[in-house]
């Protein structure tokens, strides 16, 4: 088994409205696979089908080498699942919740759970309804990890987590991969994906737009540049500069995306009087669209 998740021509429609359309992808074993897209793109719909919560209109899903519909229970034994705002029983303490799920799994390792709780600084003795969203998310995260699953399926896992816990979470996921396990993670945060994933797929309006490695993606990712100048000569120079796109000006600034040699841009900027410079990663969608357009043009 080389792929832990294999989707073949997966389609889901909700009456006349779109769900996802003709998605095919393979998640290689031992990798962290990012599944990205804007809100409403179809990420959760796809994950729900992978988890067996809903059935595809057409297409096939194999998880850990098995058909999820006919081998759901067997497969879920080896899956740890976490969604962005996972609902757990508010009247139970974290310990009670984890013990319950542990009993259902037939696998309750108290020592390992304590280790995870210490790691994420999570109080498992309080009733979950008294916890903040971030702390509830920590309990859900422990729930996903507590049985050392072969495959983690995480739907927007870090929403609500503070930066320190996010860093610990990233470390845990990397250790999980180091043990030969796999992770399928949906997100709309590019930096999170860059830090964690080996491979990424981008879904937009229910269709898989890009499926590539993070290295390839980063190479082609444009930067969002803002310059504190509206000098017409600078604007003309930028217009001629290869790699500049989406150039717009406001009263005091000019904004554009740049995908080219950094030195060339710096040299061009050096010839003009610029009061302020900011360079950021372009947002997720423009990064992927730029990559997509590049692929289309090849």
């Amino acid at each position, binding site marked *: 088994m080389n792929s832990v998740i294999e989707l073949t021509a997966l389609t889901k429609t909700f009456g006349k409205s779109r769900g996802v359309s003709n998605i095919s992808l393979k998640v290689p074993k031992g990798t962290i696979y990012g599944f990205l897209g804007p809100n409403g793109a179809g990420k*959760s*719909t796809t994950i*729900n089908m992978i*988890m*067996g*919560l*809903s*059935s595809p209109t057409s297409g096939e899903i194999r998880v850990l080498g098995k058909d999820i519909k006919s081998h*759901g*229970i*067997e497969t*879920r*034994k080896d*899956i740890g*699942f976490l*969604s962005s*705002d*996972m*609902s*757990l*029983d508010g*009247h139970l303490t974290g310990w*009670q919740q984890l*013990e*319950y*799920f542990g*009993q*259902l*799994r037939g696998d309750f390792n108290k020592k390992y759970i304590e280790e995870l709780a210490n790691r994420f600084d999570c109080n498992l003795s309080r009733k979950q309804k008294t916890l903040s969203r971030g702390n509830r998310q920590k309990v*859900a995260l422990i*729930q996903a990890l507590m049985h050392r699953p072969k495959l983690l399926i995480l739907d927007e896992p870090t929403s609500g987590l503070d930066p320190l816990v996010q860093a610990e979470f990233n470390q845990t996921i990397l250790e999980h991969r180091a043990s030969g396990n796999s992770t399928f993670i949906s997100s709309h945060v590019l930096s999170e994906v860059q830090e964690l994933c080996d491979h990424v797929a981008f879904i937009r309006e229910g269709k898989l737009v890009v499926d590539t490695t993070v290295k390839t993606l980063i190479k082609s990712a444009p930067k969002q540049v803002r310059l504190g100048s509206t000098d017409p000569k600078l604007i003309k120079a930028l217009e001629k500069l290869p790699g500049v796109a989406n150039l717009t000006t406001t009263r005091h600034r000019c904004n554009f995306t740049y995908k080219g040699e950094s030195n060339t841009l710096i040299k061009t900027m050096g010839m003009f009087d610029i009061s302020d410079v900011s360079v950021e990663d372009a947002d997720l969608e423009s990064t992927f669209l730029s990559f997509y357009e590049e692929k289309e043009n090849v």
Partner: protein
Amino acid sequence: MFKSIFTKTLFDKRWSTLIWAIAIAIFCILVVLLFPTFKETFGKALQDTPENLRSLLGEAADYQNINGYIDIQVINQMIFLTLIMGVILGTNLLAGEESDGRLQSLLAQPVSRSKIYWHKFLAMSLLLFLTSLGLFAGTLLATLIIGEANNLNIGRFFQATLMVLLITLAYASLAFCLGALSGRKGVAGVVAGFLAFTTFMITTLASTAKVLSSVNYISPFKYFNSPSVIKNGIDLKNVMILISITALCAIVGWIVFRQRDVYQK
């Protein structure tokens, strides 16, 4: 602490069930404590009541002995409380958990949908049984207080309580089934509540409005306490009909729930 979905469901609903059972027991005690007063005054007053109204209020003779009184004031009246409790419970156990997303978390564990469904259904049945014990115990206690325990036909009263349980279970199963079909708490609760009210009105008015008498056959209330269980003993045919309604709802819900998409929170 939780060895199964069944025990976890019992744990989740322990306080609400206890409160319902105690509330029903207290209502029953209060109603039965009024028996001596009713015996003195209301029974005699009913002798002058028009025939049509007697079908609703009962015969004058019914108020002269504890068995008739309990039949009218406990078995026929307290059913509203157990039904409300049953519909709320049936709605919350599956559709309620799906609406707030907890069912999705449970389904992410290695358990089958059938197991989840039947464990919850069995827990619901046991909780309703415990609630109907509140009705039985409260009434029994009150008859001891007013010194009428010796006149009470306990065996028949137990049979009548069993019929309360069975009709409550039928409507609770309907709510549970509707929740399993739709995944929507509002749909399950409103439709089951509406059907309970409508069928109750059909059966109540069927004896005075002939047009309703044929429709009455599809009303579960027709098979609940007609003829009076306390007066005539339990009718096995009625028992089987109510069990069949419960079983039908449970099986239809199970078949659909196994296959359908679970609501995305």
